[in-house]
């Protein structure tokens, strides 16, 4: 890419963007700012848990925005996106904890979170390109299978590089890495080479959920700004051209190889960012947290929200996160109290094979989740908030009618 030589790039109109999208994006921003106050108010002063959940949901929002670049913009079906999430989290885990003391390095490394945010991004982007390279000739189903493999390999490698591996204990193996440093302000590098004396301001550790929440909102805003700018850039148009028709894209002069690598790589960098945050907030990373189901969940968020449309993808992520981690976990209790309230309390007791409504609903959790997905896709096949293009496409279809208009005029 000769990006550096280019004159200030012309801002292209956002493809398929409508006023509705702007309104929703602004509403989401206002909502994000007001949410902590709302949470505190609703819970009578103890909104910590809610705010904590919201910060976790933000991780998925960031992931969905990133995957949307790969799948929504460039049309490359990626079923192993969680791998880059893992790479971001492990990069942070290794470089900001005592973990590497047990490794052949025999030294703890405690780099500041703020630096590692960028490191995580770049490492993930690098691996994005590494995954992209062998898949350049593949499309659709074949590409999906290779990315699926990558998504399985990465957590396995992290699991393998633990106690007893030939290469040394880098990742804590099945136990993962615990005791990861929280982000702190102001940042300084502490370790054998620097003493506390170097600090000028009192240290502020991220302990309170609200600190993570604010940080997450900032990261999401940065992510949205970056993604919308990519969307309206030359690169964004090239991604869409490749998505629509790779041969035609090449025939119009798009370097499809570079363009696809950039999609994987830039998409992965969002995941690296999310992973770094995730590792820091949880203070623990373990290979189990990056299983196939995580990749699928993110993909569902993107597709269900409205592939290619950034506000749609954010809404999709929030909705799926809410359903999975709030609605479904509370549903058994809700069902039980609802049954009591309408006089069907006898359902709550267990009889023989019937485990009671509470347990039964718990058993059916993922059946219900599946049903919700099926219903949404039946009634909103284009996603909750599709881009205008998809709407136009569905409403108008491809018409041959106009041929005759032309004939009359011609």
């Amino acid at each position, binding site marked *: 890419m000769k990006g550096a030589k280019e004159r200030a790039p012309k801002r292209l109109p956002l493809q398929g963007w409508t006023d509705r999208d702007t309104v929703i994006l602004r509403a989401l921003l206002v909502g994000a700012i007001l949410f902590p106050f709302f949470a505190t108010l609703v819970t009578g002063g103890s909104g910590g848990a809610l705010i904590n959940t919201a910060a976790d949901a933000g991780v998925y929002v960031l992931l969905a925005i990133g995957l949307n670049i790969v799948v929504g913009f460039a049309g490359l079906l990626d079923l192993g996106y969680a791998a880059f999430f893992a790479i971001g989290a492990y990069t942070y885990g290794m470089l900001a904890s005592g973990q590497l003391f047990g490794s052949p390095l025999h030294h703890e490394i405690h780099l500041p979170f703020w630096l590692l945010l960028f490191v995580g991004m770049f490492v993930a982007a690098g691996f994005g390109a590494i995954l992209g390279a062998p898949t350049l000739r593949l499309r659709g189903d074949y590409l999906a299978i290779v990315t699926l493999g990558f998504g399985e390999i990465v957590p396995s490698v992290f699991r393998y590089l633990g106690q007893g591996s030939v290469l040394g204990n880098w990742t804590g193996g099945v136990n993962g890495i615990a005791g990861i440093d929280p982000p702190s302000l102001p940042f300084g590098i502490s370790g054998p080479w620097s003493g506390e004396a170097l600090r000028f301001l009192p240290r502020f550790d991220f302990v309170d959920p609200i600190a993570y929440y604010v940080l997450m909102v900032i990261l999401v805003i940065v992510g949205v700004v970056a993604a919308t700018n990519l969307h309206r850039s030359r690169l964004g148009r090239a991604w869409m*051209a490749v998505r629509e028709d790779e041969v035609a894209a090449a025939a*119009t002069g798009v370097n499809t190889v570079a363009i696809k690598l950039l999609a994987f790589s830039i998409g992965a960098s969002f995941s690296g960012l999310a992973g770094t945050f995730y590792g820091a907030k949880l203070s623990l990373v373990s290979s189990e947290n990056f299983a196939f189901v995580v990749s699928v969940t993110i993909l569902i968020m993107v597709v269900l929200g409205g592939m290619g449309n950034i506000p749609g993808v954010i809404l999709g992520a929030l909705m799926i996160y809410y359903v999975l981690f709030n609605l479904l976990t509370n549903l058994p209790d809700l069902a039980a109290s609802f049954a009591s309230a309408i006089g069907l309390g006898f359902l709550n007791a267990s009889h023989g094979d019937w485990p009671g409504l509470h347990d039964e609903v718990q058993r059916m959790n993922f059946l219900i989740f599946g049903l919700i997905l099926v219903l949404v896709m039946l009634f909103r096949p284009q996603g909750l908030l599709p881009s205008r*293009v998809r709407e136009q496409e569905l409403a108008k279809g*491809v018409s*041959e009618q106009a041929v005759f208009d032309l004939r009359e005029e011609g």
Partner: protein
Amino acid sequence: MALLELENVDTYYGRVHALHGITLHIDEGEIVTLIGSNGAGKTTTLRTISGLTPAAKGQVRLRGKDITHVAPDEIVRLGIGHVPEGRRIFGRLTVRDNLFLGAFTRKDREGIRRDQEHVFKLFPRVKERLDQIGGTLSGGEQQMLAIGRGLMSRPRVLLLDEPSLGLAPILVDQIFDIIRDINQEGTTILLIEQNAAKALAVANRGYVLETGRIVKEGPTSTLLESPDVQKAYLGI
């Protein structure tokens, strides 16, 4: 020196040996047509020139410079535009974006704007549909957009693959008129057609392709008089 030359080109399409020793040339300012039946290798010839299916043997030269193994996007930069078979416009992008992508290799904003105006003059319909998505255009409009997109790279040579395919007769005439206009403005054209009568009427010279080999070539007037051509391609 010919503007574009193919010398003894062999191309494989997957495992199919599609082109056998193709040699042809196109001079500056000409319209040259390749005629032949389905599967004769016409599309493969264009794909070989534009680098989408590079030749296994032989050479493709642009102004004497070997471009046989140059990447497709670089070939566009060198001045060869390709309007692929079946239009292949970007169906879910707007007409505006389709044209924008046609000029993807260029940086001169002013020139791009002028060329876009020019495309609008050739195809007023395209201008009317600027903010509509490509897939909702009619077949004829899509073909016009495809040619317009091809022109946006400001090519020296424009490769046109079956521009009349699937169009109503009146539109076919319009498209051929426009091809002539484009040529008169200085763009050299290599035209592939199944509609041999129309193609031979518009072109200066022609090549007849059969199963990946050139079996006949010459000025179109000669080809039109050839009994073989008349029988096989003109239905006379």
